[in-house]
């Protein structure tokens, strides 16, 4: 079956160049990067070269990059690493669960947390962050771009508020990396999360930027790896892959890849809006990442649409799945004020660098007829007027 993958916010296919870069470190160059002999030196050099690539992608010093097992660990380290019982955290209602559930755990262990709300477009109002500040506020954690809608948060303004108040700023840039210019000096954040597999690197890899001068308590204790911020023998092939993916993301960004993705996304959105009635783009009017669109189709269950499209060869998703794999209404869309049935009628399409105009046209050849079939058989559609 011809298959097209438009779920790149979940994960991206590994670039062949990345695999090639990793390959020697599975077999020939197997040394422990902490060993003093030749084998160790060889892999140490590879790890540090990868660190420089990641540093180049986000515009920081290599020493400010901590390698982790992925976005979730980076978010956890950034949050648990600086907060102590009695401290106050400000975050938003639309964060990824890696931040939200970390915040919930903090609440249960003696920290205070304020979740600032978003408007109908999915954006926080920086003024709300300012108002939420307390004498014991230690950290603001706000995502750079939302993983379900692609909506960008006003991080620069939040950074000024954080700086004025002398509190740390952490941002989850897992989705933004490779799609937005990411200079930590310009963002003025103290902590920033990226993930390897969202930028065509390997799963199980990620990094946390920790600004020089910021101390994070490790979550994993052991040897003095990663400057005592994350113990454990380095995942050398993974780190090498992350480094290569970061370099490719940087090069792609300089080539104008973001613009190309934006054009594909616009083609997809316009094509769907032109051929499907009662379809609505979530987050419209807010600045958004170029590669994500989240669309509600009135009168359908997104769950059925995802399955029906998958059976026809198109991979898309809804925002959230529970542990059984069943779909739950998205907390992000609910926070934006969508009713439960609207949230459950929403699909995310996310493009990657491998996607072409033909891929978008394949989606456009399937989505309208599939939505029509769902609506024809839906007890929700046409029986009463669907008011939005």
């Amino acid at each position, binding site marked *: *079956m*011809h298959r*097209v993958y438009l779920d790149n916010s979940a994960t991206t296919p590994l670039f062949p160049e990345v695999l090639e870069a990793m390959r020697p470190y599975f077999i020939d160059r197997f040394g422990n990067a902490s060993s003093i002999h030749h084998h160790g030196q060889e892999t140490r050099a590879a790890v540090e070269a990868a660190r420089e690539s990641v540093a180049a992608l986000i515009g920081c010093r290599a020493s400010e990059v901590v390698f982790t097992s992925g976005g979730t660990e980076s978010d956890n380290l950034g949050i648990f690493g600086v907060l102590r019982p009695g401290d106050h955290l400000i975050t938003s209602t639309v964060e990824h669960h890696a931040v939200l559930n970390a915040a919930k755990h903090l609440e249960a262990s003696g920290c205070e947390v304020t979740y600032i709300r978003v408007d109908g477009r999915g954006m926080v109002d920086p003024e709300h962050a300012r108002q939420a500040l307390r004498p014991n506020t230690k950290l603001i954690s706000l995502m750079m771009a939302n993983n379900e809608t692609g909506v960008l948060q006003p991080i620069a303004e939040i950074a000024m508020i954080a700086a004025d108040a002398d509190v740390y700023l952490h941002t989850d840039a897992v989705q933004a990396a490779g799609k937005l210019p990411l200079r930590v000096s310009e963002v003025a954040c103290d902590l920033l999360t990226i993930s390897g597999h969202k930028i065509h690197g390997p799963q199980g890899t990620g990094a946390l930027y920790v600004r020089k001068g910021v101390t994070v308590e490790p979550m994993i204790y052991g040897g003095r790896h990663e400057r005592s911020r994350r113990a454990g023998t380095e995942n050398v092939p993974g780190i090498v892959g992350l480094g290569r993916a970061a370099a490719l993301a940087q090069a792609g960004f300089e080539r104008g890849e973001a613009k190309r993705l934006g054009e594909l996304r616009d083609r997809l959105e316009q094509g769907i809006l032109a051929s499907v009635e009662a379809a609505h783009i979530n987050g419209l009017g807010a600045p958004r990442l170029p590669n994500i669109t989240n669309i509600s189709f009135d009168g359908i269950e997104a*769950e059925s649409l995802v*399955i*029906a499209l998958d*059976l026809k060869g198109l991979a898309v998703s809804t925002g959230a799945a*529970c542990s059984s*794999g069943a779909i739950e209404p998205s907390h992000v869309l609910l926070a934006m004020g969508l009713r439960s049935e609207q949230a459950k009628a929403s699909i995310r399409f996310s493009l990657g660098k491998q996607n072409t105009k033909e891929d978008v046209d394949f989606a456009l050849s399937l989505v309208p007829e599939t939505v029509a079939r769902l609506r024809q*058989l839906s007890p929700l559609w046409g029986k009463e007027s669907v008011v939005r």
Partner: protein
Amino acid sequence: MGERERRPLDEDRKEKKRMSTNTIAVAMSGGVDSSVVAALLRAEGHPLIGLTMQLWNQRRLAGREGMPETVTGRCCSLDDVYDARRVAETIGIPYYVVNHEERFEKEVVRPFVEEYLSGRTPIPCSLCNNHLKFDQLLVVSRQIGAHKVATGHYARVEFDEISSRWLLKRPVDQAKDQTYFLFGLTQEQLSHTLFPLGGMTKLEVRELARQFGLVIAEKPDSQEICFVPGGDYKAFIDAYLVEQGDALPDTAGDLVTTDGKVVGEHAGIHNFTVGQRKGLGVATGSPLYVIQIKGDARQVVVGEDKDLYSRTLLTHRNNLISVETLDRPMRVLVKIRHRHAGAMAMIESSGAGAIRVTFDEPQRAVTPGQAAVFYDGDVVVGGGWIA
């Protein structure tokens, strides 16, 4: 991406056509029966889609007062989803979990609680069949391109040329007969339903599971109500109402005899079911049974065994299967609970959509909230809810 996998278009078209004409959705619970259904249909060459309905979060009430701390191996538990997924992988079919928790709560759990609080004894499995498995799941299945839904129920469905009606019939394995829970299926639903196990015995099904090499071949059968762990429905009702923020409605009242004499008190009518003997808290010479529960008056009527027998009952919210209408009285076998052997009776319309059942011999413990299902030999004539 995908260039390497691209095949000539006509092949794609052929596959699409094949998928759209005979694709079957299999409702997979992770148990032996539905797993064998999937494997059998796969072996017969049908394009299949495996679906598991996520109906209830077993962890939701876990640990509340009276409820077990942990729940494993129950319907809708992660273990069951895992099993269903493994089976789908083994036989090589696409598999998805569909979330119907909201509807299950609205159509099954809430009515279950409300029926008990009104002094009736509900059958959640029938509600689930009517509103979820053969309704919502059928809609989803048709939406995603399947034309029929197959389940692991022990029952048979056949089209009768003479009457031009879809018939629901008892299975070959009478001990596993599940037709009592399926009386609510409409003609439309039956026309889209397959019961591939209707011609087999449970022993044969288990043997097939072994032959197909399914990991769940030795998994025990599930018996209890899937969302009530441990089978303690009273604890469930309490825990559910607390979770919902509703205080348990006070349904305490008097225990009275059949001639209206108050002989004691009770803590709530939902603790009783017709025919119950234990837990009445009244000591008398002869054994006492619950004869009737008067919801409005909060009275539990108690009496002797002989008082439990009645010759007639009325059913409402009826569904007829083998006949379109009940124009004249009909002689049938009637089952008034799942484990009831059945008794001969006449059924006739009784105005306002009700059906009057008149047994040849008085029947013990006719229980409001349960179903009366009518049989003509192996054929299910229809059924209704006992008023």
